[in-house]
């Protein structure tokens, strides 16, 4: 009898491990680790590329375009024209529904908003040229792609009246190549209150996330993006790539 119970006991442990690995079989591939909000099992019919949803097979894939102008000191009014897509609020969260979605807005590569409205005012912009990019996303936060490229549009607007960009106190460039960080994990040590600039360059499309500060930068292969912010929370923070799934930067603020 004891032998039987022992077997059942070990079978349970094995079952734990198997169920753990099978329930996350999709997550185990490094591509699905980003803003993939719902269980990928629900999307068997789509061409699921982790973070993205390729809709090249549609005859009328959705499109988006952006226009805008500076309105007041440090402010820009943006307008979006969306075709073949119904814009749905992101809250409460909903499952992916073909033909529905919302907009992801990036300012200078940094994710700033998720919208279901067709206009938006960006405030607190500094003097100089800024890039505004809009992409369309599924209800579960995967970006729609056509022919391997995100369906998106961007515009550059010069801000003439606005605060000067604060001077950078400390900066670092992090380059990711062939599946690892060039010269190993990068470290940047700064003081609380300093202006920090992080330039990111990857040989693959990815999403950079700086924890706790919760800054996200969408990266296009081979195109450097710079993130500038004031380091006001002390501690050591991980900067990681969502798609690649590993840490590339340790930011120490003391």
């Amino acid at each position, binding site marked *: 009898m*004891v032998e039987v*119970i*022992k077997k*059942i*006991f070990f079978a*349970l*442990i094995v*079952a*734990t491990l198997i*169920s*753990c690995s099978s*329930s*996350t079989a999709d*997550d*185990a*591939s*490094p591509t699905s*680790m*980003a*803003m*993939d*909000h*719902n*269980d990928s099992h629900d999307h068997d019919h789509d061409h699921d590329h982790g973070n993205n949803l390729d809709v090249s097979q549609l005859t009328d894939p959705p499109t988006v375009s952006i226009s805008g102008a500076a309105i007041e000191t440090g402010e820009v009014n943006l307008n979006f024209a969306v075709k073949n897509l119904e814009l749905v609020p*992101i*809250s*409460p*969260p909903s499952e992916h529904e073909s033909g529905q979605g919302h907009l992801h807005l990036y300012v200078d590569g940094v*994710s*700033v*908003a*998720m919208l279901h409205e067709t206009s938006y005012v960006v405030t607190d912009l500094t003097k100089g040229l800024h890039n505004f990019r809009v992409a369309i996303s599924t209800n579960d*936060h995967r970006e729609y792609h056509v022919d391997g490229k995100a369906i998106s549009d961007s515009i550059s607007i010069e801000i003439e009246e606005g605060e000067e960009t604060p001077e950078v106190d400390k900066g670092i460039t992090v380059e990711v190549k062939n*599946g*690892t*960080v060039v010269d*190993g*994990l990068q*470290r940047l040590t700064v003081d609380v209150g300093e202006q920090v600039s992080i330039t990111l360059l990857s040989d693959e499309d990815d999403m950079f*996330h700086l*924890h*706790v500060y*919760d800054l*996200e930068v969408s990266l296009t292969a081979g195109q450097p993006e710079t993130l500038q912010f004031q380091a006001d*929370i*002390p*501690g*050591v*923070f*991980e900067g*990681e790539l*969502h798609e*690649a*799934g*590993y*840490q*590339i930067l*340790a930011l*120490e603020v*003391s």
Partner: protein
Amino acid sequence: MVLIFNSLFAHGVGGRSDLPISEWIAAWSGAMALLLSFAALGLLWHQPRFPKLLNGHLISKFAKTGQVITATARLVVLVLFFVVLAACFIGPDNTVANIAPTTVFIIFWVGVAISSAIFGPFWKTVSPWETLGKLLDKSRTVVTRPAPSWLTSGWAALIPITIFHWLELAYHDGSSPRVLGWSILIYTVFLLALAWRWGWAEARKAEGFGVLFQLIAAISPIFKGEDNRLKVRLPFVGISALNMSGPSIAIVLAALGGTAFDGVSRTGWWLDLAVGKSGGGLTVVNTLGLAWVALIIGVAYHQASRIGSRLTSNQNFAQIFGGSLIPILIGYDVAHYFSLLILEGQAFKILLSDPYGQGWNIFGTADHAINWTVVSTTVIGWVQIGSIVCGHLLGVLFAHDRSVELWPKRTALRSQYPMLMVMVLYTVMGLVLMTG
């Protein structure tokens, strides 16, 4: 403006580590701990003191009120258990937006451990597995079958503790709500199956978390007397009444090893070693690292006990001094997870208002934000140093008291050399890990 971030966490939950402690402060603290330890060998009392302090005073005479409070607490924890378990499966599949990872890794693992050290054996009263196990017992006739030795010996409790550490620290996707959900579900079914077969009184011995928290509760000033009434005594003296069996020691050592590996995995050296690794590759590297650190911790204690057994001609050396490990474990826990509990732990209050990610705001806290500067990094740093050094000193004091209780002066002195060696090793290791 709404932002939703999904995150991978290298250490259960997190993404933030404490600032490294200056090497000078760490070295001075280590030296001080060492000096005080050796002083304790010769200069301290030569008659045991702790056993005399064990009795304590009665706290409350209002047994009725106590029963109402415990029944309520038990119900609240049970409801929370099912809410979180359900959130694992139907809440957002996202470590930060789902309430489960924060609840399991911060509120349960760190929060209950540290509260047990302060408030005593409360977990045994409110644990959802206790509640479910007892309900199962009540629902049928008394079981009289003798339980098998792997269960009665207590070794089964090591399994959940080991798997938990592996999920938290080694498995690359261990903080995924779905993974946690399956783990909790299987563990619960497994415990109830044991309870069905042999009764909860036996099945309880496989509930590793309950066993560990009960051991930690021994250092609390609050305890339950023989008549099951709450009493109070000096903190920490309770370990002299504690019976540390082989499995109990293994469980405490496993928890110590896990916490130590968590420290190792945040050092610059480890980050350089693991850079660029993700998925299965990361799991393999972490598993090896976890096993390696746990082995160092375990072998050190085992060897010290062997030497001690020879020096004192007492075969139970490991069990006699096992209690020393508990203050050291709590010292490690506080040093590594104090900031996690009070910073990232705030997410619990926020997520509790909307446990299924439906846009609810039950307690009006859903739109709160984590205050990352509620304690300064200076305070965190001193708490870290203080807890490691205090844990060490309390371990040494306990070992001293035990040895003078059991042996004449000369043997007592000799018995402490190996214990002191292993405690110094743990303390130096803990301090080195905090320098980054």
